[in-house]
């Protein structure tokens, strides 16, 4: 309790305790000493009393005036301390006493405390004696000798015995000592109370504003000032407090400015990255698309290699852009999970499909393993999982010059009804040292910089943060020259299998017909690429650079019988003059014929934008750049029509 007691209670309490100790010490030491002193004083008084009486009695007795004994005894006995007073014969017979009824009694019978020997010494030797009563130190027996002159020359000797009770005297002395202690106690209590009161008022008026000020600052209030006047410690503390508060205000202002600047910079960076993304993806869409088209032409075998190298370089550049954008999003803290049913097997398949050219190029063996015979469905964010898988598989390919890569997915039910999901990628590649492994696990990709061991130095770091986003862990088991195994582990809720709209296995059994497709793409290169791809897929494409032209063409299909109506619209999200959402809305409203026209959005924006477009009425979404195959999948998903051109076989890959 003491350590937490406030000052205004602690100080008076300590004062009170000190006083109490002082008073107790006085009681323990001072009072007994006073009593002892009182007893010594009592002995002295008893001696004076009996010597005085002895003198008076001896004087009258020596004159033979025996009748005067009674008078002197009366006067002596008026002293309230005198309990007993008698003149006695040597054998103890009382000759005269303070009570006449005692005359003739024997003193030794009456008082056992009166000692025969002491009385005898007093009578025969004239020895004066004082002794306390046994067991009662406050009572004193005094013995003295008297001489009676019965006749000239006839002396006889008797004794004088007096018992005095000093109880009152000693009690009074003790009371005086006690009273001073009590007075001291009263003084201490009074002072302690006054001290408590003064401290209470002082601290209430001086300390409470400081406490309130601190609370206001803690609550985030600005411009808090205590402003205590005076020259005491509290005023000093108040000034220091006000200075601190002022400094906090300055710091807060600076921090707000810095934060605003940082946010502005961040926004600018995001805008810049978005712009860069768009600017790079647009030409890359052309490059990859045309390389894709070119690879399906009859070209010399030597040129095939050139095309493949060019395509790989373009895809590397694309991956770099993806990494940079992902890193930027993670730094912004905008990367929140969007939970939806996810098929792990499908994601693996899609990732592997994308990587197949690289795997084939290195002639690596690939093994895909699942803990279950059926597809594994969980509630999670497909985009995040895809990113993790993509990074791990692409790294495995990158650092495995030869040998094999094994990908495995595994789910283990937990007690809480959820699943432990494990995703691992093993390779027989170059492996890594323990130092690099530890640095990677701590999120430091810089160790890989300059070592020519990664594409951007961002991949694993992003992958690791993605795993953390899933509340999961990632571990690396690697030995230099012996390959590596990356194991991502997270917890997810299982969910029921969903119908796969774009299942490749179903393509061959579905509708195959030529579609008339309206394409709206501002970029010339993109427009011609899209037209070529669609023609390659066996469809007809009418491409427009702006919305007005597209709407005009749509109108022509309604009023001119020779103009076939459109079965599908593929619209670039960056069309000039109108937002894509407004374009779709206008399209739906324009005519009942096109109210349900399937629409696919192509965009340089990421997959995370898909929902935004589908919520606006679009039926599909493709991120640029894309392959003919990807285009075919999305067209099928939107129209249930498979490709009919020469490129159809590639979908089976």
């Amino acid at each position, binding site marked *: 309790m003491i350590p937490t007691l406030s000052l205004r209670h602690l100080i*008076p309490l300590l004062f009170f305790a000190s006083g109490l100790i002082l008073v107790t010490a006085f009681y323990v030491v001072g009072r007994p000493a006073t009593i002892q002193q009182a007893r010594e004083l009592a002995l002295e008084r008893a001696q004076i009393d009996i010597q005085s009486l002895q003198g008076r009695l001896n004087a009258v007795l020596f004159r033979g005036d025996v009748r005067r004994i009674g*008078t002197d*005894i*009366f006067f002596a006995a*008026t002293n309230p301390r005198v309990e007993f007073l008698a003149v006695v014969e040597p054998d103890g017979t009382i000759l005269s006493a303070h009570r*006449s*009824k005692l005359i003739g009694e024997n003193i030794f019978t009456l008082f056992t405390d009166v000692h025969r020997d002491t009385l005898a010494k007093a009578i025969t030797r004239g020895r004066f004696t004082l002794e306390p009563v046994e067991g009662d130190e406050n009572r004193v027996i005094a013995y003295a000798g008297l001489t009676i002159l019965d006749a000239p020359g006839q002396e006889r000797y008797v004794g004088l015995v007096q018992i005095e009770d000093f109880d009152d005297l000693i009690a009074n002395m003790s009371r005086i000592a006690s009273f001073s202690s009590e007075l001291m106690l009263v003084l201490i209590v009074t002072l*302690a109370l006054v001290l408590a*009161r003064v401290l209470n008022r002082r601290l209430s008026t001086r300390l409470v504003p400081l*406490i309130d000020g601190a609370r206001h600052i803690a609550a985030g209030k600005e411009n808090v000032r205590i402003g205590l006047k005076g020259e005491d410690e509290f005023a000093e503390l108040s000034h220091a407090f006000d200075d601190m508060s002022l400094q906090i205000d300055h710091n807060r202002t600076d921090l707000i400015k810095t934060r605003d600047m940082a946010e502005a910079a961040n926004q600018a960076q995001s805008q810049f990255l978005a712009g860069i993304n768009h600017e790079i993806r647009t030409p890359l869409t052309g490059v990859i698309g045309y390389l894709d088209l070119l690879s399906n032409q009859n070209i010399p075998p030597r040129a095939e290699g050139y095309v493949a190298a060019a395509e790989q370089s373009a895809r590397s550049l694309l991956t770099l852009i993806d990494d940079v954008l992902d890193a930027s999003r993670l730094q912004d803290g905008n990367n929140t999970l969007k939970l939806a049913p996810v098929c792990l097997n499908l994601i693996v398949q899609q990732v592997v499909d994308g990587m197949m050219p690289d795997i084939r190029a290195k002639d690596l063996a690939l093994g895909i393993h699942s803990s279950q015979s059926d597809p594994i469905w969980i509630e999670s964010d497909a985009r995040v999982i895809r990113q993790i898988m993509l990074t791990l598989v692409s790294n495995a390919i990158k650092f495995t010059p030869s040998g094999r890569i094994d990908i495995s997915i595994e789910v283990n039910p937990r007690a809480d009804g959820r699943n432990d999901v494990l995703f691992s990628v093993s390779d027989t590649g170059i492996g890594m040292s323990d130092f690099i492994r530890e640095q990677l696990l701590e999120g430091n990709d810089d160790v890989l910089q300059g070592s020519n061991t990664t594409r951007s130095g961002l991949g694993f770091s992003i992958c690791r943060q993605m795993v953390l986003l899933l509340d999961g862990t990632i571990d690396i088991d690697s030995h230099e020259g012996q390959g590596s195994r990356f194991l991502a582990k997270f917890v997810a809720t299982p969910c029921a299998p969903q119908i796969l709209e774009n299942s490749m296995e179903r393509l061959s059994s579905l509708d195959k017909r030529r579609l008339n497709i309206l394409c709206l793409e501002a970029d010339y290169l993109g427009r011609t690429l899209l037209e070529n791809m669609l023609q390659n897929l066996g469809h007809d494409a009418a491409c427009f650079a702006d919305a007005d032209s597209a709407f005009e063409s749509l109108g022509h299909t309604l009023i001119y019988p020779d103009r076939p109506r459109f079965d599908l619209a593929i619209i670039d999200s960056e069309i000039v003059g109108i937002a894509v959402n407004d374009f779709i809305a206008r399209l739906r409203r324009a005519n009942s014929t096109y109210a349900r026209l399937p629409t696919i959005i192509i965009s340089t924006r990421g997959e995370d934008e898909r929902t935004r477009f589908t919520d606006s009425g679009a039926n599909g979404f493709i991120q640029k750049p894309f392959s003919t195959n990807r285009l075919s999948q999305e067209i099928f998903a939107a129209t249930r029509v498979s490709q009919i051109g020469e490129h159809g076989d590639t979908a089976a890959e």
Partner: protein
Amino acid sequence: MFAMMSLRITSAWLRLGIAILASVVALTACSEERSEGYLRIGANPWAGYEPFFIADELNLFRPGYVHMVETPQALGLSQALRNGTIDAAAMTLSRVIRWPDPASRPVVLMVLDHSNGLDKVMARPGIQSVADLRGRRVGAELDTVNGYVLARALELNGLSLDDVTVVNLENDELHDAYVSGDIDAMAGFGRPIAAARQDGAVELFSSAEIPGEIIDIFVARPDSLEEHPMGFEEAILGWMRAMDTLATWPEDEDFPSGALRPGVLRNQLDGVQLSSAANNLNLMREDTGGLHQVIERRWQAAIARGVAPAGHDAPRIDPRPFMAAYKRYLAEVGR
């Protein structure tokens, strides 16, 4: 919250402080009560005063308040009281009446006993009644109770002191004067009366015929009343307790040393009636005025005999100590 807590703790401190202060004040008050010291009461060894000594020996006084001192017969008790050797005394009303100095005259506090036949008028055989005393020589100490008894006897029989020849003799001298033939009759008490009876004297009158007029009283120095208010209350209360003890004390059991044995006491009380608390209460009442009347009568008689100075008030009665003690006594005995 802060202020409330402060208030609560401060009030707790205040309560503690007040409690300690109250305790100390109580202790101090006790000390004050004891500061008046002992009340010293002087009394002759006389049966009428014995309840005081019995109270002393049986510790019936509250400790620290009353100190009993036995006064030897030879001592001038009046002087001891006047000089402050003692604060209070048990004495006859006569002594108070003939007190020489009105300013220091003791104040009457209560009646201890009254003579119920102890004081007598005796005469030679042949003198048949008080009326026969006309013209006779009668021995009596005029300024004492003996003179009063003689005067009252004569008065009740239609005579006065002028009708007889009063020979002023002390009590102890009466028998010798009777034997020598100097006197025909005597007014006295105790041993001379018994001796005269043995010599054939006849009893003409006794104090039993004037009940309540020959009294022994408890008196106080005027200034000691203010100095020892508690002491007087304790003394009277102790006396009342002793009276009760005396009434119930077994016949064959001795009192403690210093007090008379019950048998001796009862012998000495022959002709004397101890005054009970209830009797005192009746005497003290101003309306019935028992004690006031007795004192006034005695006072006027004393003036008439020239014993008391004319032009002064009769001895004063202060009923306060008795009343305070009686109230406590009633509480003690459950009435």
